[in-house]
């Protein structure tokens, strides 16, 4: 989008979006929404923990400007959650102290302090000129006053506050707010096979593919044959008739449907009518966050008003766990709502001065997303009153009033809720944080505010192998531009130790990734030294691994993840819940290879093709050449079993000898010939084999339905995609050979146009898979191409004649815009899309799909991390029933919150013994296999039929007498080395062994895994 030469002509508000910085977030919000955000000025009033959390997320997301207002002096208790205030700021104005730190978050977002004097509340005059106003912890009367004005003047208004483990949010985006994309999901699309000509036109999808539409959605069509009026028609409202069929209304006056067609969903704007705060106080519209607490919003709606009333009357908040104040709050609330739950009201009063980081993170992340919705019209706003609580996080042994009194420490906000003794527990807790990316940064921030590990016994271990990259800065808020290239875990640890100096020396940063290779680092001693593990990972493999380790070492595991506006959290508690791997989401289904190779019908297919084309041209052949040059007897030993010897040798000959370029010009020629081969010749070859009029075995045209007949492309250097391909391919080829690149299009044009392209003649069918040097005959020698690669190999120079010579395979890097990688993949994919008449995709879209980029935004991360920490309180408390824990699922776009009890660990049985995944047998002193087998027979009446360790099959009952006699006397350590043919590493103190066994009746039984200490 960087239209540099047009910049002067553009509106100053519409500055170019820095795609390098906003890359991951752009995949959540899109360019349109971000442009609207870039025109919005946001005011945030109240800069305690909640205000700064909202400001942080909004600034990271990128709006035109953020202005803060909070002239009140910093108090020590503010440090419970306000991560941008320090001890030395006490006494300064909050806004003044925090604004410069907020400003560092994003160079594109100016942060202003509105100033003001202590004791001076915000006024209507001050809020003029802002598109969105957020009040954090303002008095209710002030909220109403401000909202009266914003409601009448088209300014988006949000009021939010947190009280201990409670939070409340109110949205008023005006009487008529237009939301352009209520779900944020990609528009649905699919192929159709029939449209009835009827007053109720029924559309049927191809191949029983679910259309996924809902009643009231709108669709339009393309490529319909016969009933052509549907192509590009005004969006038609549908009603769902079945998973594969839907109704589009009257089609009786349209043409007769013949075949084909694609439906595409059209997103229609939605008008939302917000009520003012004044009206909402009387007629609230609740947004439910937890269906298990469905009557709580009403209670809290009264409760929060009662707190406001209490404050107005007494000029102070109710005291922590003070029964007298609580009674007053309850009675005030009962006047508003006689049905309100007294116990909950009393807790609300007890915690009125409470301020805890996890709740602030949850509400702050949520509100920030609402601000972005107000500014961008993207995603559905929350309508209209939200109340949230996590009372379950309170310790089982409730603190006393005395225990909750402020002690003049930075933790006073948390002490007011949990008490001093629990604060000590938090301080002495020891956690292992796996990953220091987006979730990791937020987690460390929350932990530092909570004072986790601040006590004498406390410790935080954090590991991340990554270094900081530009695209991280948009949400991994502990990192700044100056930190680029540094290790994440190191920078993050230092940043949060600066936020809370109690953590200095308490955080141990590592770069060793978790995995089987680092079990000498993360060993028994290491796990003995921690109380639990928190995952902050970005991949399933490491999650599965950590899950396995936590099961083995019996450690609680807190797991979470985000995908755009969606997030989830899971608690895993030893001997109680199932583990992470017990129930896994099915991964995305892959596309069949024939679709990718010959029959693409969607841009995803051409991108997948071009991504592997990238490897096949610029990575694999070069690796093969290097392997040939460095590995002794590479051709003989490595290629023997590949089934592809000849092709591979041919390739090495081509890249190392026959087609090796000496100049950049030769690279351009090579690229031009690649174009011809891939986008003309092979398409013509395919059409030769399967002509456009080919008939399938059912008598239907072969090229129909999902199979789109391709067209060869004729090279035209004036076509920007054609030329882009040549430029990218030639440069990458040049890189492979260490030749200097070139970017001047004129050079490429000139050379490419002068290339003499050999005439193409299709190969005839019988020659396929046959050595092309042999005459075409149906005899054995013609088909036998397995042996003759040795002749070919004679063309290769011997590796010893080229000492030190290597080619440069490309290492795919999606985030470097100058390396031609994504340029090539985009051009190659689009050329192929042009072959198949598929709508092409821009670079940005191609990059996401090819780079498998997971969309991400700071708001979701903040919220999810808050939810995790609410569970961490429970872990620290040692809660041991399922009902006390919650797994969470959120989608900020809709918005949606869902919570469920964790699933219990599945019980299995052998003999009379119940067991779960948390149980195991244990052997000490490295037993022999015979002792091992005898133990099960004698002690458990189990007949062992197979024993395995890792991927090795140590023994089975059908292994043969000789092997059995050899192995049964072996000690386990010896046996493992014997079978795996690898030494057991010296740091290995135990082996995890699995067996298959049957009981006395010969019934197969499942038994726990076995730990053999060696």
């Amino acid at each position, binding site marked *: 989008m960087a239209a540099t030469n047009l910049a002067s002509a553009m509106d100053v508000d519409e500055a170019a979006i820095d795609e390098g910085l906003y890359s991951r977030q752009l995949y959540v919000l899109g360019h349109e929404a971000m442009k609207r955000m870039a025109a919005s000025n946001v005011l945030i009033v109240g800069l305690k923990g909640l205000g700064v959390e909202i400001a942080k997320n909004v600034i990271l997301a990128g709006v035109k400007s953020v202005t803060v207002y909070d002239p009140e002096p910093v108090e020590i208790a503010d440090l419970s959650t306000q991560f941008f205030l320090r001890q030395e700021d006490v006494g300064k104005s909050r806004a003044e102290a925090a604004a410069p730190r907020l400003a560092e978050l994003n160079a594109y977002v100016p942060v202003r302090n509105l100033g003001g004097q202590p004791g001076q509340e915000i006024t209507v005059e001050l809020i003029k000129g802002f598109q969105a106003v957020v009040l954090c912890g303002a008095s209710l009367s002030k909220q109403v006053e401000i909202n009266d004005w914003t409601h009448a003047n088209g300014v988006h208004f949000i009021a939010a506050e947190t009280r201990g483990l409670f939070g409340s949010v109110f949205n008023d985006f005006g009487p008529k707010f237009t939301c352009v994309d209520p779900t944020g999901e990609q528009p649905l699309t699919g192929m159709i096979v029939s449209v009835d000509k009827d007053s109720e036109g029924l559309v049927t999808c191809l191949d029983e593919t679910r259309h996924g539409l809902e009643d009231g959605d709108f669709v339009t069509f393309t490529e319909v044959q016969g009933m052509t009026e549907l192509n590009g028609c005004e969006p038609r409202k549908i009603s769902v008739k079945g998973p594969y069929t839907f109704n589009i209304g009257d089609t009786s006056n349209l043409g007769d449907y013949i075949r084909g067609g694609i439906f595409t969903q059209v997103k229609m704007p939605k008008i939302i009518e917000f009520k003012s705060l004044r009206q909402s106080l009387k007629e609230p519209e609740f947004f439910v966050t937890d269906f298990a607490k469905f009557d709580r919003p009403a209670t809290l709606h009264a409760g929060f008003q009662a707190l406001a009333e209490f404050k107005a009357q007494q000029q102070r908040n109710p005291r922590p766990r003070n029964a007298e104040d609580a009674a007053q709050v309850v009675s005030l609330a009962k006047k508003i709502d006689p049905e309100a739950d007294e116990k909950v009201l009393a807790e609300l009063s007890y915690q009125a001065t409470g301020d805890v980081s996890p709740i602030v993170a949850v509400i702050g992340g949520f509100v920030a997303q609402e601000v972005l919705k107000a500014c961008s019209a993207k995603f559905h706003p929350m309508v209209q009153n939200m109340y949230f609580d996590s009372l379950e996080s309170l310790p089982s042994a409730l603190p006393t009033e005395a225990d909750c009194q402020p002690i003049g420490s930075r933790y006073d906000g948390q002490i007011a809720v949990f008490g001093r003794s629990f604060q000590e527990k938090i301080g002495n807790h020891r956690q292992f944080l796996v990953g220091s990316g987006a979730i990791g940064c937020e987690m460390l921030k929350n932990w530092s505010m909570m004072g986790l590990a601040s006590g004498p016994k406390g410790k935080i271990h954090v590991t991340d192998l990554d270094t900081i990259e530009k695209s991280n800065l948009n949400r991994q808020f502990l990192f700044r531009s100056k930190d680029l290239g540094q290790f994440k875990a190191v920078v993050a640890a230092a940043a949060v130790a600066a936020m809370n100096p109690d953590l200095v020396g308490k955080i141990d940063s590592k770069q060793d990734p978790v995995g089987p290779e680092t079990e000498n680092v993360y060993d028994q001693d290491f796990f003995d030294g921690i109380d639990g593990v928190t995952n902050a990972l970005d991949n399933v493999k490491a999650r599965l691994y950590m899950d396995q380790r936590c099961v083995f070492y019996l450690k609680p595991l807190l797991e979470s993840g985000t995908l755009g506006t969606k997030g989830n959290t899971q608690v895993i508690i030893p001997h109680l819940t199932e583990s992470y791997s017990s129930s896994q989401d099915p991964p995305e289904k892959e596309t069949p290879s024939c679709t990718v190779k010959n029959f693409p019908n969607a841009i995803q297919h051409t991108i997948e093709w071009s991504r592997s084309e990238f490897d096949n041209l610029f990575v694999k052949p070069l690796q093969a050449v290097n392997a040939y040059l460095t590995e002794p007897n590479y051709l003989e030993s490595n290629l023997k079993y590949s089934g592809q010897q000849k092709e591979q040798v041919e390739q090495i000959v081509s890249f190392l000898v026959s087609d090796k370029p000496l100049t950049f010009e030769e690279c351009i020629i090579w690229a031009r010939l690649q174009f011809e081969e891939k986008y003309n010749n092979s398409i013509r070859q395919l059409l030769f084999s399967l002509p456009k009029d*080919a008939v399938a075995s059912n008598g239907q045209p072969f090229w129909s339905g999902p199979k789109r007949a391709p067209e060869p492309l004729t090279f035209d250097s004036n076509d920007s995609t054609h030329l882009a391909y040549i430029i990218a391919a030639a440069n990458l080829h040049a890189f492979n050979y260490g030749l200097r690149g070139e970017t001047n299009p004129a050079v490429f044009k000139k050379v490419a146009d002068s290339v003499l392209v050999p005439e193409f003649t299709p190969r005839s069918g019988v020659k396929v898979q046959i050595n092309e040097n042999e005459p075409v005959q149906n005899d054995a020698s013609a088909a036998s191409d397995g042996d003759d690669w040795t002749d070919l190999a004679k063309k290769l120079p011997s590796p010893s004649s080229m000492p030190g010579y290597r080619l440069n395979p490309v290492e795919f890097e999606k985030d470097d815009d100058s390396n031609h990688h994504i340029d090539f993949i985009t051009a190659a994919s689009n050329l192929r899309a042009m072959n198949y008449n598929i709508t092409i995709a821009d670079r940005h879209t191609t990059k996401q799909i090819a780079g498998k980029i997971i969309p991400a935004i700071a708001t979701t991360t903040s919220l999810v991390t808050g939810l995790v920490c609410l569970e961490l309180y429970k872990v620290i408390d040692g809660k041991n029933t399922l009902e006390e824990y919650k797994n969470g699922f959120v989608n900020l776009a809709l918005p949606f919150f869902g919570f469920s009890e964790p699933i219990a660990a599945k019980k299995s049985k052998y003999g009379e013994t119940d067991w779960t995944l948390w149980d195991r047998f244990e052997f000490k002193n490295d037993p022999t296999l015979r002792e091992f087998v005898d133990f099960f027979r004698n002690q458990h009446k189990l007949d062992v039929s197979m024993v395995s360790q890792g991927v090795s099959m140590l023994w089975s009952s059908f292994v043969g007498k000789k092997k059995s006699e050899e192995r049964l006397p072996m000690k386990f350590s010896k046996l493992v080395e014997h079978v795996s043919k690898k030494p057991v590493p010296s740091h290995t103190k135990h082996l995890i062994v699995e067996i298959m066994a049957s009981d006395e009746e010969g019934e197969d039984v499942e038994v726990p895994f076995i730990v053999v200490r060696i």
Partner: protein
Amino acid sequence: MTVTPTAMRRLMREIAELQTNPPEGIRVVAGEDNMLDVTGIIQGPEGTPYAGGYFRVKFNFTEEFPAAPPKCRFLSKIFHPNVSSAGEICVNTLKKDWNSSYGIGHILVTVKCLLIYPNPESALDEEAGKLLLEDYESYCARARLITSVHCTPKTRPPEFDTPSAESQPVASGSGSTLTTTSAAASSATAPVPNLVASSSTKSLPGTTPSFTHPLKSSASNTLTTSSSSMSDKSTTKERLTSPSPLGPADSNVAAANPVDPAANLGKAAKRGAGNVPAGMEKRKKALKRL
């Protein structure tokens, strides 16, 4: 390459079962030092141009197995429309129709069925597809030639010294009592279920078969166990991803009952072996008519 302990446990069981009671024409080799190093050997089915050959299929398991399918490819050279020159196999079972209850045996039986019922409509090797559509005899000759040159050893692979589950009574001892895989073994010895190859004209939604065609009849084999009426889309179609012959390669070999692939393993193998001669005749006639 690693898999989760649960997946490992499951693979171990299945490999043991497949080695002690292998399905007809299928054997599995796994490394003792690395059980994830799995190779399947498929005996070219009689009555196909692959007869006499032994085809090796290599498995690659990822940590996401069994949620994600293993990656499989032919190590042996084969002339087949649904197998690329690099050995990739185009079968929906290994892609979009993967079900986490499937195992090694199910995949190998599916691939074996693909040898019997190649599907030119989802060709990876478009020249083999073309030949199959246009000139069945040449296709057979070509496939037979490649088979004889590349995949026909002088002596039978030693793995086939172990008799198939079918040809021996169900052992009452060690492995056959395993919960999931034992179903395969026992059902293989059970009478062949009533396969409705004859009911191939049972109308499929969206297509109007005008003649009996082997590809079509094989597709309808997938319907054998579904007793519900085809008009009931919501129930039947759910599991039938692609009843049309235009569908992907394994529309003709999709599990009759995806919920219990193991049970199907035996049946499918039986069907594959049993139905061939008649099917071949029909196919030849049908293809000539094209």
